[in-house]
């Protein structure tokens, strides 16, 4: 792993999470990062449409609902990112010919929304008890005009940034599962951002573990 230089800020905003907050879905979670907030709901394994049936694994669908209005092309592209990340961590072959649906509702957007979608998705999948080979989390990094790296930026910080990167990191080896970038940057900056995200992911995974422990505290 690369050395994280001293000037970069690995601080993350305050997190919040609640599992099983909805009664209808098979699994649900809300995830809050600062003022950004997302609710995720998972349905399945349920019956699958014949046209979408895959004979040796489950079919996963991801739907992202923006705060207002209909989902647009931007949501579609983020859906693809979330879906493929979930597909890589879920053990889909254990539920062949069935469907999984993940609905992500944006409650409030104050930056790092893709990261928040990923975190909410992971908590909801865990809540639904779907078999997963590892956990994943999302981290957004912004590079501002002074070439400083800001983790988990707010909407205002995102706007001022020169480049914006979101990574999904897996819990096993802290490798990059997904990357989504905007703006231009050097190779060195990319490597730095990845290193920072990997460091930040440790905090998030610890947070995951703590909130699951809290949830099961009654059963201990």
């Amino acid at each position, binding site marked *: 792993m690369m050395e994280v230089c001293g000037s970069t800020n690995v601080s993350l905003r305050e997190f919040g999470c609640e599992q099983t907050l909805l009664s209808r879905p098979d699994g649900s979670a809300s995830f809050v990062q600062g003022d950004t907030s997302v609710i995720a709901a998972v349905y399945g394994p349920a019956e699958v449409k014949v046209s979408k049936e895959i004979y040796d694994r489950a079919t996963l669908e991801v739907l992202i609902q923006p705060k207002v209005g209909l989902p647009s092309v931007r949501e579609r592209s983020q859906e693809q*990112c979330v879906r493929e990340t979930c*597909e890589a961590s879920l053990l889909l072959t254990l539920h062949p010919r069935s469907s999984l649906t993940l609905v992500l509702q944006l409650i409030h957007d104050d930056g790092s929304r893709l990261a928040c979608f990923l975190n909410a998705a992971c908590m909801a999948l865990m809540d639904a008890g779907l078999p997963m080979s590892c956990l994943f989390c999302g981290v957004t990094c912004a590079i501002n005009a002074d070439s400083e790296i800001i983790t988990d930026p707010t909407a205002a910080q995102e706007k001022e940034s020169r*480049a914006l990167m979101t990574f999904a990191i897996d819990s096993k080896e802290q490798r990059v*599962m997904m990357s989504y970038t905007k703006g231009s940057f050097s*190779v060195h900056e990319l490597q730095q951002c990845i*290193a920072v995200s990997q460091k930040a992911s440790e905090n998030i995974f610890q947070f995951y573990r703590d909130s699951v422990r809290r949830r099961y505290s009654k059963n201990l």
Partner: protein
Amino acid sequence: MAAGFKIAEPLEYHRSFLKENCRPDGRELSEFRTTTLNIGSISTADGSALVKVGNTTVMCGIKVELTNPLVEAPGKGFIVPNVDLPPLCSSRFRPGPPGEQAQAASQFIADVIESSEVIQTEDLCIERGKLCWVLYCDMMCVDYDGNVLDACIIALLAALKNTKLPEVTINKDTGSTRTSFCVFDDSILIVDPTAEEEGLSTSHLTVVTDEKERLCVVHKPGGTPLSAEKLQECIGRATARQREIQKLVDKVVHSVKTAQ
């Protein structure tokens, strides 16, 4: 019965090739397919280009229109990129509105334009707050055999170079090129995947670089995780590819100019 093996066990079939460091179509792991480019072939469009990367064929047509700039961005014009994957190009697409893949591709192209600053939207403004240009860039896939995003970017770039705006000059000095990679079995990297290889691989990675070899987009929509070293390897390959494509585009644009 080799053909039987290919259809019945496609993954095993590809693995048996990769073991030998080659691919079913005879290419090496890091070898691109032949790329050809033809520009200005559509007279009804203001700029057009046809790109073939192996079998994959993408046509980009640009239509230029006039409109009013937005109140919140009075000094900016518009670029509206859309990728169309019609049922014509592969049996996997159905008629009707664009599917998820086409939509994600459109968004990707829009991101590339914004990040690489291929065109400054400020340059498309004719009179501040009153009149500006809108460039409708439609990329139409005619033959879908993998790596469509690469072909789309090349087509877009070439078509933009081919576009002439009446009485307006645009500086289009930054070009950008992308390179697609596929990850097989979590560890083997291949470039310029065909449709079949795309379907079997576990992860995709797309790197876009500009002329100054800065990175514009590093897009990896999920899939199996990748270490930082592998990523570095991909970026190195992408910059090399960028130079090749730049040369190709320049050559074709130049040849068209001299022909006029």
